[in-house]
């Protein structure tokens, strides 16, 4: 496939050779919002490298600039300074190589679940036949457990089911990087658990580099290879990074039974309460 081919190549830019393992590279990233009282610096000197096939979660206090960072990676928010590159190519704007799962499901309420997924699939695979595109969309809807709701209007689905469609839509366009902005923040804890399982199940198969913002420490540990802790703003940067060394595929039970889990948890909570 296209993705794997590119993944094996080595990219170079301005004489710097990027190691092929790095998918997403943020260097000296800066974001400034001009205000009447002078510039407000949200992020400054933020450096982060995220590897291929890595799942990274980001935690930090509200308003520290996590979402700003994510939308800059998505290309929806202009960069004030520094660089973001995907496989060595600088990010210049939004594009389907970086799929986004938004905090609110953001489905088109007048379309059916299938049409919502197809909206992206049609765009990314313009040369596929109509049947092939339908199959792709249906496959991912099936994966998120919506095989009985293809033709339901998005407005008729519950919040949890809408976010399932959101997950299907993001995976179906086969992005290089998946950006998740607190996708389960608005759900009740039971639904949240279900959706975490679904997300990680699909991810185990597709291994798309994922960057996810969360407020939930348990979620951060359960899903991630690395948990990135951001300092509080203004001038937020990376405060600490914690590697989670549980084997994959993980189950909730095995994670909870592992003694390291509580060490990790304490580490994160100490950081947040600091």
């Amino acid at each position: 496939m296209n993705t794997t081919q590119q993944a094996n190549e080595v990219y170079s830019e301005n004489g710097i050779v990027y190691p092929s393992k790095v998918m997403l590279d943020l260097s000296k990233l800066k974001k400034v919002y001009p205000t009447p009282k002078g510039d407000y610096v949200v992020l400054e000197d933020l450096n982060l490298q995220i590897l291929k096939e890595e799942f990274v979660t980001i935690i930090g206090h509200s308003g520290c600039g996590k979402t700003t960072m994510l939308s800059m990676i998505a290309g929806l928010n202009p960069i004030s300074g520094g660089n973001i590159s995907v496989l060595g190519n600088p990010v210049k704007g939004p594009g389907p190589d970086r799929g986004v799962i938004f905090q609110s499901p953001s489905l088109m309420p007048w379309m059916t679940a299938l049409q919502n997924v197809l909206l992206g699939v049609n765009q990314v695979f313009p040369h596929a036949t109509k049947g092939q595109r339908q199959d792709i969309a249906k496959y991912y809807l099936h994966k998120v457990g919506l095989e009985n709701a293809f033709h339901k209007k998005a407005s008729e689905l519950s919040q949890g089911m809408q976010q399932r469609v959101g997950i299907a839509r993001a995976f179906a366009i086969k992005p290089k990087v998946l950006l998740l902005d607190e996708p389960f923040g608005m759900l009740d804890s039971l639904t949240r658990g279900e959706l975490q399982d679904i997300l990680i199940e699909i991810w185990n198969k597709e291994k798309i580099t994922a960057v996810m913002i969360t407020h939930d420490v348990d979620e951060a540990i359960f899903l991630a290879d690395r948990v990135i802790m951001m300092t509080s703003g203004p001038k937020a940067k990376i405060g600490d990074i914690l590697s989670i060394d549980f084997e994959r595929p993980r189950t909730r039970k095995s994670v909870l039974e592992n003694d390291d889990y509580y060490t990790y948890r304490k580490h994160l909570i100490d950081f947040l309460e600091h």
Partner: protein
Amino acid sequence: MEQEMVLKNENSLSSSLKQMLLKLTPSIKKDGIIKSLKNTGITLLSILLFIGLWQMGSKALYNKEANYRVEKALQEQGEAAAVAERACIESGDSSCQPNTLPSPSQVWASLQSLIADHQVIRADKAAFAEKMAVTNEKMISQGKDPIVYTGRASFVDIVLTSIKTVFAGFLLAMFIAVPIGIVIGLSPSLRSAFNWFIQIFKPVSPVVWYLLVFMIVKTLYIGDSSDNAFVISFISVGLCAMWATLVNTAMGVASVDKDYINVAKVLKLGTFQKVFKVILPSSLPLIFTGLRITLSVAWMVLIAIELLAQSQGLGLFVWEEFQNGANDSNSKIIVAMFVIGIIGFLLDRLMLAVQNMVSFNKNEMA
């Protein structure tokens, strides 16, 4: 007294009906039925009250004018003339009837005479068509225009002309306002370029629009003897009524949920796809709200514009009846008033149904 009797009957009837229905329906549905019965009852009661007040009002006005006439006869011509005047009024002779607000029964009679008149004219038309059938066929085969009926229009024809005018005006408004609304909604700079234009022309009165359209159409039709009253009136109606749609469309397009726009950006949808798959569907509810206002405004200004344009519709009918000053003119005007009101109400219901059909979020609709 009669009024009270009617009210009492109505009450006892509805309560016995209620009892009967209650026995027939399962208990779950009871509340709903009682509620709808109650609502219908209240509506009926208020209609009766309205008719009662109207009856009383017209009676008072009638008496006032009758007394004045008698008084005037007494002062100017003496006792005998006053007695004669009173006798004349009481006899119901049309030459000396007070000309004032007609009573409900007079209006009802006028409605029936208008319908009877329509039947007569329709029969006339049919007879004419039959008589001319052979001649017209010949004329058509010779490439000439057939001879058409040019007699008086019946009340139903008049109503149909008005409805035709309003729909033509509505369609014109839609075809002008929706595309322009979309374009200025998409572009903030065009929006500010158009803003002064909208702000200035929106409050212009129907009469002035009519005059403007008249100036232009008159010149365009110069040397053409055909009747352009219909064209002038529907264009004026359209121009008067289009502003609500224009403003609503622009607002709907400009205020599409930012999340949807972000999705479109992430998927890199082209401009065409973005407009037709995301922006337009999401602004449809607001566009239709605008169209609904446009239709009701169109119907409202239609009467004034038809009157000015001498277009054969309800507006002209009302005006001609007023100028006519015949004995039943006033009650015909009131008939027209009710017809205008009822058609306006039906048009609004129609648009509401369409609006509900296109709205994707049923919860947001009242």
